[in-house]
C-alpha cells in the first residue's frame, strides 16, 4: 500500500503538474484564436478529470507498481517460495495477491484524485501568470465547468484500470517460468499488456459515457 500509493506521489505530482501546465498552454493557444480564452480553465478541468488524470496516473502506476508486482511475484515463483506457501497450506492468492489487489484498488483512484488537484494547480499557474486570470476567477470558472459526473466518470475509469493493472501484473508474476530470464520477460509482458488493455478500455469507457450521457 505504501509502495503503490505514498511513494508514487512525488512522481504523480510532477507528471500531473506538467500535464496541467501543458493543457493550459495548448488550450490558451487554440482558444485565443477563437477569442475564447476565458474557457481555458474549463478545458483543463474537464480534460484532467475525465481523461488525462486517470490515464496518465495509470501509466505511471503500471510502470512503477505493476512491473514491481510482476517481478516480485515472478521471483517468488522461480525461487520456490510460492510452492513453499502452498505446501505450508497457505493459499498464495490469499496471502500474496489479495493484499496487492486491495492496495491497488484503493491507491490508484486516490492517486488520481491527488493528480487531478496538482494538474488543476498547474493550469492555474499558467492562467495566473501568463494569461489575464486572477486566482478567484480561475477557481470559479473551473468549478463551474465541471460537474460531479466528470469526477465520477474519471474515478470509475481509475477503478477499472486498477483492476486491470493488478490482475495482469499478478497473473504474469505467478506464471513465470524459466529463471531470471523468465522474470524479465514476464515483467515486460505485464507492462505492455497492461498499457494496451488500459488504453483500449479507456476508449471503450469514454465511448460508453459519451453515448449514454
Amino acid at each position: 500500500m505504501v509502495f503503490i500509493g505514498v511513494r508514487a506521489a512525488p512522481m504523480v505530482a510532477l507528471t500531473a503538474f506538467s500535464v496541467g501546465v501543458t493543457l493550459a498552454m495548448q488550450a490558451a493557444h487554440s482558444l485565443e484564436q477563437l477569442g475564447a480564452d476565458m474557457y481555458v480553465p474549463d478545458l483543463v478541468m474537464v480534460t484532467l478529470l475525465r481523461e488525462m488524470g486517470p490515464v496518465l496516473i495509470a501509466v505511471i502506476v503500471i510502470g512503477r507498481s505493476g512491473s514491481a508486482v510482476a517481478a516480485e511475484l515472478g521471483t517468488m515463483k522461480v525461487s520456490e517460495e510460492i510452492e513453499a506457501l502452498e505446501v505450508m497450506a497457505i493459499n498464495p492468492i490469499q496471502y500474496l495477491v489479495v493484499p496487492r489487489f486491495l492496495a491497488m484498488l484503493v491507491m490508484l483512484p486516490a492517486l488520481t484524485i491527488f493528480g487531478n488537484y496538482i494538474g488543476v494547480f498547474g493550469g492555474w499557474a499558467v492562467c495566473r501568470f501568463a494569461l489575464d486570470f486572477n486566482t478567484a476567477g480561475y477557481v470559479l470558472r473551473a468549478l463551474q465547468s465541471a460537474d460531479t459526473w466528470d469526477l465520477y466518470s474519471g474515478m470509475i475509469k481509475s477503478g477499472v484500470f486498477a483492476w486491470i493493472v493488478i490482475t495482469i501484473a499478478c497473473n504474469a508474476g505467478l506464471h513465470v517460468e524459466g529463471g531470471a530470464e523468465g522474470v524479465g520477460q514476464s515483467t515486460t509482458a505485464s507492462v505492455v499488456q497492461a498499457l494496451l488493455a488500459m488504453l483500449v478500455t479507456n476508449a471503450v469507457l469514454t465511448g460508453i459515457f459519451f453515448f449514454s450521457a
Partner: protein
Amino acid sequence: MNANGESIIEVVDLVRKFGERAVLDDISLSVYRGETLVIMGGSGCGKSTLLRHMIGSMKPTSGSVKIFGEEITTMNEREIASVRRRFGMLFQSGALLASLTVGENVALPLLQHTEKSADEIEEIVKQKLQMVGLTGFENLKPAEISGGMKKRVGLARALALDPELLFSDEPTSGLDPIMTAVVDQLTLKLTHGSHMTAVVVSHDMTSAFRIATRMIMLGRGGIVAQGTPDEIRTSSNPEVHQFINGEADGPVPLNISQEEHDDHPHVRPRPLVAARARFHHKTS
C-alpha cells in the same frame, strides 16, 4: 518389513509421464509411522518428482497417493491444504520468503494455522531456531545468511507446527560435515523421541545411512532396491553397489539422450556457437 505398523503414506501404481517419457513408472511404496525412509538415486531419476506427488503439488498420470489414509490425488486445493497442515516440508534451497525475516518465516505457519498469542509464537520460534543452531538470527533477512543457514531455517519452519510427518528434499546438501551431523541428529531425535515420520530424498550416502531405518533406491522410473540400511549396504545388486560406493563405472547409464529426456518437447535445439552472441546481445 514393518508390516504391523500403521502406514502413513501409501503410494500405489504411481505413473507420471512428461510427454512420452515415464519419469515414474508404476511405483508402489508405503511409509510406516515412526520410520525414516530415505529415497535415493541418481540425478534425474525421479526422486524429487516422487516427493512432489507425495506433497500433492504434482498430479500423477495414473495411480494413487494416500497420506494419513486420505487419497490426495483427487483432492481440490482446500482439501489438500487440510492434509498439508499435518506435515512439514523442507525444500532443497530452503524456499524462505525473501521479504520476511528469519523469525517471521518460522512464525508464518504458526500465525496462519494456530490461534497462539504473539508471546507464545515468539517462544516457539526461539526454540525451533535454537534446535537448528541459529539462536539470535531472528531479525536477519534470508539474503543476509548463507545457503546452509537458509536450509536450517527452512527446517525450523517445517518443524514449527510439530508435524507428525516431515518431508525433506536434500536436507544436507550444501551443509558442512558438522552441520550435516547436527541435522541428522535432529532428525533422529525427532523420529525416535517424538515418533515423527520422515521421508528424506538424498544422495548424501553418509547422512542417508546415519538416519535411515529403511531405504529405497530409484532408477529409470522404478524402484531398483529397497530394504534396511544393512540390506542395502550388503546388496548384491550392482547398481546399488555402484551408487552407494560412488563408482564412476558400472551398470548405471551415464548419458541420457534427448529422446529419453523430452520433458520440454517444445524446446528446439539451437546451435551452441551462437550462445556467445546471444549473451552479448542481451547484456549490451
